């Protein structure tokens, strides 16, 4: 993706985020976990961008950095051309309306003491630019958009009176009511049944189609990413291993880790041509080099002599890059 970085909706430049685990007076050793390690990422506007990785790979950390729930330890996060680190107080609150987020767990992301109308209209009432009637119109319109129909019957319900899918729709409505330019969805379906998840995917496609919002879709499911996304980045232990247009990444994966993720997808019948890469080792290697490839310990193709260094992203096709020595 060689695009002008100023036009990109979200730019991560050399972003590192460390988590330090409890160093107290008496526990001498401090453990540092690199949630994100020198990540560069450009997300073009108006597309659905998939960030795929297993748990602990740093994908949620990336999302939290983009909405500035956290700050990077080094590097810069710019959204819509603004460096998020430079925003404080009122400016931050104002800017945040353009970047909204949907959380993983719809049972935790809605305040149990707020009704649907108060949840969805809260972002609007903070803006103080609309009359009460205008706000109500906007809330009803947004509820209809997310498929809570008829919207007026949901207004005065409370989260505990809604199903998981309905709650997630309310959460999407809360995010969309401000007409944001960027929407970050952090595994929005991981707590939902598969059939509900498909409905949510369709809803997100519909919303993106209608509002042209830049969407970052974070998931551990390559199939879902393939269904939704225009571009996919595969992340593992805080490093981006493969990035490219989703068709290209899914049909011709270059990185052994992406291949392993595709192997891991359940197959029923033969929708796709049967293909296996067998790149994932059952037993992790023990001779892990310092600062080597992060996937070395589980990669069946790796050789110590080549993989002991850190691979950089190399071109592997049109707009398609992978960080592996084997391509």
């Amino acid at each position: 993706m060689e695009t002008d970085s100023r036009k990109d909706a979200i730019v991560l430049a050399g972003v590192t985020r460390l988590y330090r685990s409890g160093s107290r007076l008496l526990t001498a050793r401090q453990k540092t976990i690199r949630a994100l390690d020198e990540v560069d990422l450009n997300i073009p506007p108006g597309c659905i961008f998939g960030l795929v990785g297993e748990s602990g790979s740093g994908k949620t950390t990336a999302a939290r950095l983009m909405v500035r729930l956290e700050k990077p330890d080094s590097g810069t996060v710019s959204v819509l051309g603004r460096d998020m680190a430079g925003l404080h107080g009122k400016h931050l609150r104002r800017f945040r309306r353009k970047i909204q987020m949907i959380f993983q767990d719809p049972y935790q992301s809605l305040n149990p003491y707020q009704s649907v109308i108060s949840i969805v209209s809260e972002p609007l009432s903070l803006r103080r630019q609309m009359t009460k009637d205008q706000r109500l119109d906007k809330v009803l319109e947004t509820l209809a958009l997310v498929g809570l129909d008829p919207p007026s019957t949901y207004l005065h319900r409370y989260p505990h009176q809604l199903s998981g899918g309905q709650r997630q729709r309310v959460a999407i409505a809360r995010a969309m009511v401000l007409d944001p330019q960027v929407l970050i969805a952090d595994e929005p379906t991981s707590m939902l049944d598969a059939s509900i998840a498909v409905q949510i995917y369709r809803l997100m496609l519909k919303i993106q189609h209608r509002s042209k919002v830049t969407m970052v879709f974070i998931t551990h499911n390559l199939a879902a990413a393939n269904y939704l996304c225009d571009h996919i980045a595969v992340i593992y232990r805080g490093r981006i291993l493969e990035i490219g247009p989703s068709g290209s990444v899914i049909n011709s994966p270059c990185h052994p880790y992406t291949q392993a993720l595709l192997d891991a997808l359940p197959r029923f019948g033969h929708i796709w041509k049967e293909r296996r890469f067998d790149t994932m080792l059952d037993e992790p290697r023990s001779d892990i080099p310092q600062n080597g490839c992060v996937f070395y310990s589980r990669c069946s193709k790796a050789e110590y002599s080549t993989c002991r260094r850190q691979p950089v992203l190399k071109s592997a096709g049109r707009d398609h890059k992978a960080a592996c020595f084997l391509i």
Partner: protein
Amino acid sequence: MKNTEIAMTRNRPYWRQALDENWRRLRRNPTGRSGLILLLIFALMAASSFIPPLISPIYNPMHGVDPHISHTTGPSLRHWLGTDFIGRDIFSQLLAGARVAFMVGITAAFMSVVLGVAIGILAGYAGGWADTVLMRLADMIMVMPTLLVVLMAAALFGQLSIWTIVAMIALFRWPGVSRVIRARILSLKQRPFIEAARIAGASHLRIMTRHLLPNVLPLALLYMTFRVTSAIIIEAALAFLGFGDPTTVSWGMMLQWVWKTGHMFQAPYWLLPPGICISLLTLSFYMLARAMDEILDPRLRRRGES
């Protein structure tokens, strides 16, 4: 449907539903029900405390002296529980004492819980040095024995009015509340709905008052009930030791009069009623609080109960 009509067809708010349901559970809980019944009796006593002085000025609990009696007498038709050492009616004193106990207990508990909740939310939400400073302050106050501090204040500044005593109890009893509230806030503030509010552009003040406060209110109510008990006991002890407000009739004050005039073993009709009342009223608030605790904490709920 027009918008105005939609706004009209509202459900009952969640807190109302929760309150109704918990109230039902409370009445079904045996401890809670006994506590409520006892409390109701005392509330009736407090409410009827203004009746005796209306019947005749000799029933005024503070100034009403029966002209025919100049010493303590036992129960009679004219004075149901007898009279004290200058001929004041003990029964009307008992009623007035109930009113004072409620007043002291509830206002002191309310003030200390308001203070404790505010400080707890602030400390838990702000974190960092604000949390450290506020919690160290709480620790320091928590280890001070309230009764002793108020006694010393009374010794230093002379007689304290009942409202000064209430304020001092509130001032020294908030740390326990704020510790509990802070702990709850620490877990609540990690919940995504708080982060969602931040992303929506809510200010810290709004998050604290609109999102965190409603979620800790049930807990605050529980602690208020526990605090009522301790406030009543502290006030009674203070009055019994002779440092109460001499212008109000409280049960502790009545006990002090019994003791000071040397009737501890001569006038059981005078000694026992205020003593029993203090025990029963604190017991009823305590039982109520225990039952609320059981309802609010599902782990304490016995099996088979919904």
